[in-house]
């Protein structure tokens, strides 16, 4: 491999594919032994060297397609000519700088220094790179195997304490990565609340072979079904959540909402806060207002998410996973009212708990734009994050994630995305420019992922996600049986 030129923070390398090979996403160590300094660059594109003579060869060959052309040439010469014709170039992004101190290499952000042309260029072994980047840390979590040298890739769970985005097309493997992160965190004693929109997490307590075999996470996975084994009292839900649901989700108009708020306050003071008492008191209001409130309360009642008897509390639920585990909130096929009450109640209670000193935990939110309002996003991103509610967002529609979430992301787990606009949108989360991630992300096959962020020392690392031995898939009802 030869260094041809540097353009901005990119270098162009020429190589003979018969003798050497590089892949998009592979890391190169360009090191000058004489000065004990080098750079690490990641291949972001490869192409054939376009020489005018080669164009001539190709045109000549193509124009004579209708003729039979027999070549009798010394094989050695032909091999060299084919080599030149097939010579490839690779565009690589300079990402880090290497410095040798007392014979020991260390990695640091690139300062702009570049080596001479006569340096050695060789693929950087993934183990060496990950060691230099110090990825494993004190709380190692294995995510999968590096693509090129098939080495286990670990991150330190420490670096997941922030905003994490997992994005990719449907079927690309993003939910699988979500489960890897969740189980990895649980293994380190962390707790999580999962808003599970496709019912993909509730079976993690079982082995992949079947629901008759418990996995080691059985006691740590708490499946909760709103309206079935997850319900709250009105008192626990609180006026703010109910008011928000009644107005934003159920469209209660201003005058009725004002009345609802008053009724709620009065009944709460009297200590008889139930759906029936709210309806009874609403009936005393003007007909139109009474009807508007009562109709909506009927709808809420039908969800079974609200009970008059003792309801569930987040405090109690979190006690069940105090040594690590996850509350799986199954939102699959739930109506918008149930989803809104459930999510908002949990987030509101979580905020209160964190404010009163509750230990930090993680929120896993799949396709959060379906159930998080803009206000809720802002609250989670700004206040709750600092209180210790770390977040993992999973989506196949990255543009649905607010840009302020993208920009504050600490880590991104990028699976295949084929839309340029999606890639441009998520690029800021990687702290890399779109030009770098687009060629890589577009060429990622299923279950291959680019991880970049504080967990990788801001170095994009491409991995194949590891398989899980627990039951991971959601249960979609099928009409046709799989062969």
């Amino acid at each position, binding site marked *: 491999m030869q260094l041809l030129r540097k353009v901005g923070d990119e270098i162009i390398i020429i190589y003979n594919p018969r003798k050497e090979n590089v892949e998009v996403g592979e890391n190169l160590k360009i090191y000058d032994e004489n000065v004990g300094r080098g750079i690490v660059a990641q291949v972001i594109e490869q192409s054939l060297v376009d*020489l*005018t*003579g*080669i*164009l*001539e*060869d190709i045109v*000549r060959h193509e124009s*004579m397609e*209708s*003729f*039979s*052309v*027999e*070549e*009798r*040439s*010394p094989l*050695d*010469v032909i091999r*060299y*000519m084919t*080599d*030149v*014709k097939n010579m490839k170039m690779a565009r690589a992004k300079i990402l880090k700088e290497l410095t040798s101190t007392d014979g020991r290499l260390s990695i640091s952000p690139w300062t702009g220094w570049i080596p001479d042309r006569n340096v050695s260029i060789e693929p950087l072994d993934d183990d060496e790179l990950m060691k230099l980047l110090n990825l494993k840390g004190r709380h190692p979590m294995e995510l999968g195997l590096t693509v090129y040298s098939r080495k286990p890739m670990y991150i330190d769970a420490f670096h997941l304490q922030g905003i994490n985005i997992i994005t990719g097309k449907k079927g690309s493997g993003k939910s699988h990565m979500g489960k890897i992160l969740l189980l990895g965190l649980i293994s380190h004693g962390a707790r999580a609340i999962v808003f599970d929109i496709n019912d993909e997490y509730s079976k993690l307590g079982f082995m992949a072979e079947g629901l008759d075999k418990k996995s080691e996470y059985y006691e740590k996975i708490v499946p909760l079904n709103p309206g079935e084994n997850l319900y709250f009292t009105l008192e626990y839900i609180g006026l703010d959540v109910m008011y928000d649901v009644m107005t934003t989700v159920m469209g209660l108009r201003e005058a009725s909402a004002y009345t609802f708020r008053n009724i709620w306050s009065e009944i709460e003071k009297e200590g008889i806060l139930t759906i029936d008492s709210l309806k009874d008191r609403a009936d005393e209001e003007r007909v139109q207002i009474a009807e508007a409130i009562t109709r909506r309360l009927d709808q809420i009642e039908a969800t079974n998410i609200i009970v008059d008897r003792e309801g569930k509390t987040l405090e109690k639920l979190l006690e069940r996973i105090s040594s690590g585990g996850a509350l799986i909130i199954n939102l699959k096929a739930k109506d918008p009212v149930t989803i809104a009450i459930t999510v908002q109640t949990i987030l509101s209670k979580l905020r209160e708990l964190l404010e009163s000193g509750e230990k930090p935990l993680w929120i896993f939110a799949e396709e959060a734009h379906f159930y998080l309002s803009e206000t809720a996003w802002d609250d989670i991103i700004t206040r709750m994050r600092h209180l210790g509610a770390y977040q993992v967002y999973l989506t196949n529609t990255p543009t649905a994630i607010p840009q302020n979430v993208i920009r504050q992301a600490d880590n991104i787990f990028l699976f295949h995305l084929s839309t340029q606009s999606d890639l441009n949108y998520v690029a800021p989360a990687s702290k890399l420019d779109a030009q770098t991630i687009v060629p890589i992300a577009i060429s990622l096959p299923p279950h291959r992922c680019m991880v970049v962020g504080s967990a990788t020392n801001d170095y994009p690392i491409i991995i194949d996600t590891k398989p899980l031995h627990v039951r991971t898939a959601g249960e979609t009802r099928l009409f046709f049986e799989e062969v």
Partner: protein
Amino acid sequence: MNSERIDDVLKELIELLEDPFGARYIKPRVITLTEFDYFNDETEDKAGEQEDDETLVLSDWRIENVSSFSEVDHVVPIIATDAASVKIGETDRGIISAIRISIVGKSVDEEIKVLKLGPYVVHITEENKDDIYNYFREYFGVPEASPPALRKMPDRFRNFLERMAQRSICAQIENGIVLWDGSLTAGTIDTPRKIIDDSLDVAKRHGNSVVGVSKNSWLRLEDGTRIISLLDNVSAVGYIKVDRWISSFLRSRIRGNVFAVKFTEDGFTFRVDINPAEGISSEHVLNLLRSNVSFYNGYPYLLRLAHINAYFTPNEILAIQSYVADKFNLIFVRPFDVRRHILSPF
């Protein structure tokens, strides 16, 4: 197409041709990979000699009517050959060149076949130039002679191979037309008369006519006046037989009738030498040729194909430079052009 003989000769010679003779360094030819260029050093190496060989000195010349072509409804096989040589670089012992030959044939059923031979690499040094030169002279049955200066040897080598290819194609078809690149002038500095005469005999034995088309032709009168072209101002296609105006000295060396020919209206005028098969006239061969092949800017398409498949592109030269450096463990010495250093930037 049968060209085993050329292969056999080269196999026999290969040890001699590719002997490094203790060379340690190679100064590669300077090439530009970013611009289109094609290489065949023949035109450069023998510019002066070619002008001598292909110049028609006309005496008592005057414009006459241009003859028109007649359509001939008779399909004949046609075969053409061309060779290209290129200097790869200079070693501390000599010159490394590459040669490629191409043969293009069109059968009576219109099928076109291309055969490419080479590139063959040759390292010509003071030690081996005599052996190489006389090997070919012996092959062609001409007496041994002193080889020319080393710098002229790559083209001599190319010329020998091209002459072998020409002879080979004379026997590859029957009752057809054999196209050579260049004139049918014998007894030139690089081609003894016997070589041309023997090849024409082979063609005759196979009932073939040989047609030499010169891309370049120099016309001048005996008093030295240059004539740019005979037919440039003529819009119609046609030909002029110029035999009778060629000086007697030159005429005795040309093995055929000489024409100035404009095959197509939009094409250039070419000098065409014709050595017809037994029983037919040169004019008939000209008409046969025009009726049996297509033309590109007035140049026979088969010869064009032969040329296209013989010349070298910069990337091929680069590849051959790497090949010889690897094979002979030669160290690259950066090419140095003293003129650039003393005359730059002018």
